[in-house]
């Protein structure tokens, strides 16, 4: 690496620029759109020059969209709130259940342990629709349809396997002798889990939690089918901008910017954990 020529540096720079442009362009475009009115967005040919406006954000935050066709009520802020409730709730529960389970799977070989762990992972293989149809019927019977509890429960299909498998790898990386040494000096297995295993696996737990949060936040199909308007997260709520009188591109763009902002901020903040957590066994303390 030290002996790379100027040409190699240039080529590398160009390649990086291309990749970054390819991935960042849609996001940049959306951000630009969110500061424009529908008229400037739709003009042909499109232009990067426009007078920025905050009207899209204003409409979203106040919940009132005034257009030629009249006044449209927007539920966006409550959608955002729902997203937060659902994601935080699901990740919290998935961490509470998944981290101890991951520890058990990592440390104890019990009858059927691999089978159970694999079954949990297999939830991620099935197309969500497969689960949704029967689930809808059951949920209606049980009164869980259109409740936060019901949705958070279903979101465990997304969060739990992710947390279980990432955190398990982390626990497996901790030398069992570190824990044995602690136990034999007079501590219970619970104290060992709390004082030794949990702190050592913290980067993994953080990464898994973050990923689970992002997946939960981005989920569309579960909430679309199982929740009515007042429980819907932003992913579903954004559909409201497709109205009879046209598609409100400006507001959609602003809604997208607002809804990816929290996950983006979290991901940037915890970038180091994410990289460490996702490379599993490759990184050791």
């Amino acid at each position, binding site marked *: 690496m030290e002996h790379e020529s100027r040409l190699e540096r240039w080529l590398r720079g160009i390649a990086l620029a291309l990749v970054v442009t390819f991935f960042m362009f849609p996001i940049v475009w959306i951000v630009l759109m969110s500061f424009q009115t529908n008229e400037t967005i739709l003009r042909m040919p499109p232009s990067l020059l426009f007078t920025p406006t905050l009207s899209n954000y204003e409409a979203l935050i106040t919940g009132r969209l005034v257009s030629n066709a009249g006044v449209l009520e927007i539920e966006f802020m409550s959608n955002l709130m729902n997203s937060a409730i659902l994601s935080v709730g699901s990740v919290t529960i998935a961490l509470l259940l998944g981290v101890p389970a991951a520890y058990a799977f990592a440390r104890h*070989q019990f009858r059927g342990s691999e089978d159970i762990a694999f079954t949990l992972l297999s939830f991620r293989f099935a197309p969500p629709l497969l689960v949704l149809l029967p689930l809808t019927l059951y949920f209606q019977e049980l009164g869980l349809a259109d409740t936060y509890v019901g949705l958070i429960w279903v979101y465990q299909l997304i969060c739990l396997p992710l947390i279980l498998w990432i955190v398990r790898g982390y626990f497996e990386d901790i*030398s069992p*002798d*570190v824990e*044995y*040494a*602690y*136990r*034999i*000096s*007079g*501590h*219970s*297995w619970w104290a060992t889990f709390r004082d*030794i295993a949990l*702190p*050592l696996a913290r980067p993994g737990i953080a990464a898994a939690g973050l990923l689970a949060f992002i997946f939960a936040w981005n989920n569309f199909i579960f909430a679309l089918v199982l929740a009515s308007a007042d429980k819907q997260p932003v992913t579903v709520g954004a559909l409201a901008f497709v109205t009879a009188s046209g598609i409100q591109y400006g507001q959609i763009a602003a809604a997208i910017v607002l809804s990816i902002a929290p996950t983006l901020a979290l991901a940037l903040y915890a970038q180091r954990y994410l990289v460490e957590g996702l490379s599993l066994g490759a990184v050791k*303390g």
Partner: protein
Amino acid sequence: MTDGRPQPALTLDRVNKIYRPKGKPPVRAVVELSLAMNRGEIVALLGSSGCGKTSTLRMIAGFEPVTAGSIRLAGRDIHQLPPARRHVAMAFEGYSLYPPLTVRDNIAFALKAKRLARDEVARRVQEVAHLLDIEDVLERYPSSISGGQQQRASLGRALIREADLHLLDEPMGQLEPQLRALLRGRIKHFIKERGLTVILVTHDQTEANALADRIAVMENGVLQQFAEPASLRQRPANLFTGTFIGEPPMNVLEADVAVTERELRFHLADGVTLGYPHTAFEQAACAALLRRGRVVLGIRPHAVRLAPTGAPARVEVNQWLGDQSHVAATFAGSMLVTVEHRRVPMAPGDVIGVAFAPEDLHVFDIDSGAAIVHGRRAA
């Protein structure tokens, strides 16, 4: 409760460990192991890898459940207690230090629970750090020190504790030979000074001989012999211990026993015969030999004598190791190794004469491997 005799510190009574891996036949790691050791004694569990010594240690520590049998420590049945309540300290072979703490804190950790004064903790840490030659890394973190230093820190963390029993699992496996030799002496002194009761697991005979009061030799999960180091060497209970203890290993030759008017004879392969006067062996030994008919002779390389009048052997290899010669020769259809503490002028192909004094002979049963005769006496 006591009948006047000292109570053994640790008693293993018919302890078994059977692993049942999924989809594979069960593995009997430890079989009917019974063993009692005294307070203040150092016992080495010696054996090759997979012999059951580490499983035994882990059962005593409480990391593995006992399949059958019982373990008593200091008058308490401990085999069902969690590790925390067994009052046992342990030094680990591998990486067992807590990464976020410095070496000093790792060692002091075991004392923190006891609420000792800060000065006292510091003094004791200093003491074991000095003992183990790790004073210079006390403030470093485990990830920044060598494997050998980590191992010594783990050993220090165990030795600093007060416990009914100290378990040392290959405590010096990663150290340089010179350092190992130095530390063996220091550690033994430290242990004896404090009267600690210690079980040492090792595959290194030198370490076992140097540190232990008694050695338990294990193979395939079975205790082969439990005796003092000298007695293991002089009176091995069976062929396994005989060939396992000692370096280079004991030479082994199959023989038919026969008796004539003048001699007791061992007929080896290739028509080689070793003859000894009847008086060479005690009467009981003679009788035991004749009862068997066919036996295995064992002779240690150091005990093979080079004698021009001896039975002929053809030299294959002659290695000068700087302070001793190892000569390997074909003798009676087998390879015979001899050690001479001088440089011997022999080349491959030379024919030499070898002789075995009766006091150096070990004789084993050909089927069971049990010792029949050591030297001139019946085993």
